[in-house]
């Protein structure tokens, strides 16, 4: 899921930081670099890695209300280091950004939070497990955390429970991103079951469903000739799952992981995945494809995904589209779609 590296490093609105990073160069030796062969140390690795430049905790959930209404929930915490080390207090170089969203078939609620590290307003630790910014938190234990966030016109409080193993992407969690060797440490927990409640302007809704957590950290930005990317995480009704993305640029680059119901990960090479837009919607003054054809011919996957709510625009300081989708075709199921780089 290297797209989100690009996302943060290129599109984080604080262009000055990006310039700072560029100045430091991709091989800035002062930040730690992902190492092939590294064995994840849990629960420690569930917490923050301040020696790395960039890191995130990314939860998406497909939920259903008592009347069968579909909902989507996003909970994301990004960490960026302006410099190495983790000085205490205000002097820390660690900066945190949280995005929360709640999508219904006809509404999309978004909230963003920013925080400095070092004073306790935001942070992440493996033991006891706690990832937080302001009153938003994912805490308790990694296998059964409580996930909460709130905004002006929405809030949610969900209990997650892992029903499968942690999935390591790439080479045992060492995920190579390009031919020149840029990489990240990357694992997922795609098997969370969810029960909880959503607070919406019209009232409270009890929901159940499933959630997917992505954990990734690195220090190396990608070469930035791409104009944007399209990313999906799909959970099929047969228990298997698919994570895949394409980088749009001079050449389209794709990458994907197919996850069997038992958690076994099958990495797919560039070109194995095909993403084709089928239908555009006019969102936030631009045209965004909200219906896609997703195919992995080698594994018999040929589905179309349709946005639950075409208006799932994230009007945050980095604007992008992210929302729940319904899957139909050779497989049926639910999932999440993320798209960046669509300009007005």
């Amino acid at each position, binding site marked *: 899921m290297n797209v989100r590296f690009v996302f943060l490093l290129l599109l984080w*609105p*604080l*262009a*000055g*930081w990006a310039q*700072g990073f560029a100045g430091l160069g991709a091989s800035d030796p002062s930040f730690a670099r992902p190492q092939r062969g590294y064995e994840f140390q849990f629960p420690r690795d569930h917490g923050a890695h301040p020696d790395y430049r960039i890191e995130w905790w990314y939860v998406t959930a497909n939920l259903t209300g008592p009347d069968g209404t579909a909902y989507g929930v996003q909970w994301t915490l990004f960490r960026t280091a*302006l*410099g190495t080390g983790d000085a205490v*207090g*205000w*002097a820390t*170089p660690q*900066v945190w950004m949280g995005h929360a969203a709640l999508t219904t078939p006809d509404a999309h609620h978004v*909230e963003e939070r*920013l*925080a*400095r590290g070092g*004073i*306790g*307003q935001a942070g992440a630790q493996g033991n006891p497990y706690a990832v*937080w910014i*302001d*009153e938003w938190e994912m805490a308790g234990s990694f296998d059964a955390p409580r996930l909460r966030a*709130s*905004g*002006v*016109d*929405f*809030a949610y409080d969900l209990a997650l429970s892992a029903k499968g193993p942690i999935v390591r992407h790439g080479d045992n969690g060492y995920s190579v991103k390009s031919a020149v060797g840029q990489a990240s440490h990357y694992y997922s927990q795609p098997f969370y079951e969810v029960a909880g409640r959503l*607070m919406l302007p019209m009232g409270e809704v009890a929901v159940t469903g499933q959630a997917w957590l992505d954990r990734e950290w690195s220090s190396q930005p990608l070469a930035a000739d791409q104009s944007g990317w399209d990313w999906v995480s799909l959970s099929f009704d047969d228990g298997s799952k698919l994570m895949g993305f394409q980088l749009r640029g001079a050449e389209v680059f794709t990458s994907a992981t197919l996850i069997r119901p038992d958690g076994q990960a099958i990495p797919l090479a560039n070109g194995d995945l095909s993403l084709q837009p089928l239908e555009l919607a006019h969102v936030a003054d631009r045209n965004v494809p909200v219906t896609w054809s997703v195919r992995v011919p080698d594994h018999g996957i040929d589905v179309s995904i349709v946005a639950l709510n075409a208006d799932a625009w994230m009007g945050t*300081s980095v604007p992008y589209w992210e929302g729940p989708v319904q899957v139909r075709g050779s497989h049926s199921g639910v999932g999440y779609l993320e798209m960046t780089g669509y300009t007005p």
Partner: protein
Amino acid sequence: MIWPVLTALLSHWRRYPLQLFTLTVGLALATALWSGVQAINAEARASYDIAASTLGEGQFDRLVPRDGQPFDQTVFVDLRRAGWRVSPVVQGDLNGIRLIGIEPLTAPGALLPINAANSADLTAFLAGNGLIRAAPDAVAALSGLGQVIADDAIAPGTAITDIGVAQGLLGKAGLVDLLIVDPVQPMHQPSVSEFAPELSIQAARSGAEVGRLTDSFHLNLTAFGLLSFVVGLFIVHGAIALAFEQRRAMVRTLRALGVPLRLLVGVMVLELLGLALVSGAIGTAMGYLIASLLLPDVAATLRGLYGADVANGLQFRPVWWVSGMAIAVCGTMIAAAGALWRIGKMPILSGAQPRALALTGRRNGQVQGWVALALLAVGCVLAATAAGLVSGFVMLAALLLGAALALPVLLAWVLGLLQASSRDVVAQWFWADARQQLPALSLALMALMLAMAANVGVSTMVSSFRLTFVGFLDQRLASELYIAVDDQQQADQLFGVVSGHVDAVLPIQSAREAIAGVPTEIYGNRDHATYRDNWLLLQSGPAPWDAVAGGSGVLINEQLARRSNIWVGDQILVAGEAFEIQGVYGDYGNPLGQAVIDEHRFAALFPDELPRRFGLRLDPEKVGPLRERIGQATSIPQANMINQAGIKAASLAVFDRTFTVTSALNVLTLTVAGFAILMSLLTLSAMRVPQLAPAWAMGLTRAQLGRLELLRTCFLAVLTGVFALPLGLALAWALLAIVNVAAFGWRLPMFLFPVDYAVLGGLALLAAFLAALWPAVRLARTPPSALLQVFSNER
């Protein structure tokens, strides 16, 4: 054909340079006063705006510590983690600069000179290398403390940096002074008192009140500026009317030579436009000078009275030039409209009569009298009915204009009476000649009257305000010594030390609550003679203090009464319990509502609010020794003890700075009026030789004539002053009883200051005397040959 006509018209000014001078200087003075006052107002307002944007003063609610002491930043983190979108601020004095530390990632967007969209700023801010953005006047004082960048958008004397840097520089590591509450808050929140009982919410409005309060000051200045401009316009009108009258012959000749009327009027407008632009430029420059001289005092006044920061230095603002020039041009055109209209209507061969002005004046006298009467009637009706700010100002305008128009009529009437009652020939001639001069002098005299009325009005208002303010201080600061304690332990120590040494210890305790929708401070007062003796009630029930002591009564301040329209006899709810209003008291300068109930009821309704301040009653002589004793025997710092005398002196010193400004403007308007008289007399003097020559021929010496001229002007000035006094008092009444109530919610009692009026009358007389002196001397020195010539040229 334009050029020859223009040169012909301009040749008039070559023949009468004094008229040109009058016109230019009159207009320039009028513009100067107007634009000077506007400059001061604009500068002050710009400073408030910057202050507001610098700290979001008035825009955002704040959480402030109840005890006023900085608190641990963990409170900020706790509140954020409880779901409160707040942002920490630390502030303090550093090398005389107000240093504010903010946290850019959580601060509401409108708060800062930087925001998250300006990435370079934010990077530098967060990078921890000590970037400080400072107002240009604060840069020098901060040199060496980090990377200091001048920023015009920051309030004067202020600097902004990251909270971490500020904590270090101010020696407040880990502490914050207040939290700014983001107007956008999440859906569910616990109450603040649950997580941070030591903090209380300060509503955004209270900060914005600075603007409301200072508005009263600016209103006074603006009224002054406008009056000065009107006075100036009278001068200009007089000069233009005279010049146009004298050019009737020229206009006739030009038109007889074939110049179309429309072209002629067009060229005259062009000529006036040129004059207006030149005088406007001079005036605006002079206004800038006036403003820059007065601004330091204005700034000191505003800072002292309202805590509003205003830059001492005047910044050049192009809008002044534009507004100064615009007002000069508009004023000229208004003043010239009548004259141009008459030129346009004049029959082509109408003769050029030297006394045309005087004759038209007499013809118009009656019409003018009726118009004046109508305006005064409108003013009186409005005085009885006016409720709002606009009708208040309309009433002022009607009153002033009506009085100004009535002045010549009244003067002519008085002079006619005097003439009829005098038997002496010289006296009769003296009064008759005064009446004959009146039309030419009346504009200058109107200007004098308006200037005097403005002075009487404004100084009455300011002095009344001062007296009220002093009375209010006496009422509010009745105790001789005020002591603030941090906790109950210090309070107990205090009681131990002072018992037996003081006449009374009066606890001062308050809580905040909305009463009838108005944010109100509720005080629990002890029943004591201090309050009964000193507090002045504007409206009261039969035994207000007994009712309050009995527990069922409440006293409220005038602001609360007027805003909610609740008065004595009405019921209000305090903390859910009903109280009957027993009295309304004046509470000047306080933007909040206030209510006073008995201390026992207060304690029952607000059990958490313990008295933290105490007023001690004792012999004023013993205040010093008692302070020392308290300082030695308790842990109360000297800073927490305040002498009543000290507060009063400081408050009054501040107030008196206001006088510097008003008295400076007083002198300036009188100068303008005196100048008007001088110019009128000078322009008249040449025309008057034919009228004086017969008197001289019949035996009056030139020196006698000169003395009589002087006497006549002074008499007219005194007479004008007599009329100006009631007008000024009416003006003061309107300002205090109508405009002030409409603008600020309280009515000030009006006091009279006969000595001040006498001094003002003396000054006006002096101005008139000085103005008449030179023309009189010139007259006394008129060569006999010039007087004789009158007879040889007899028409």
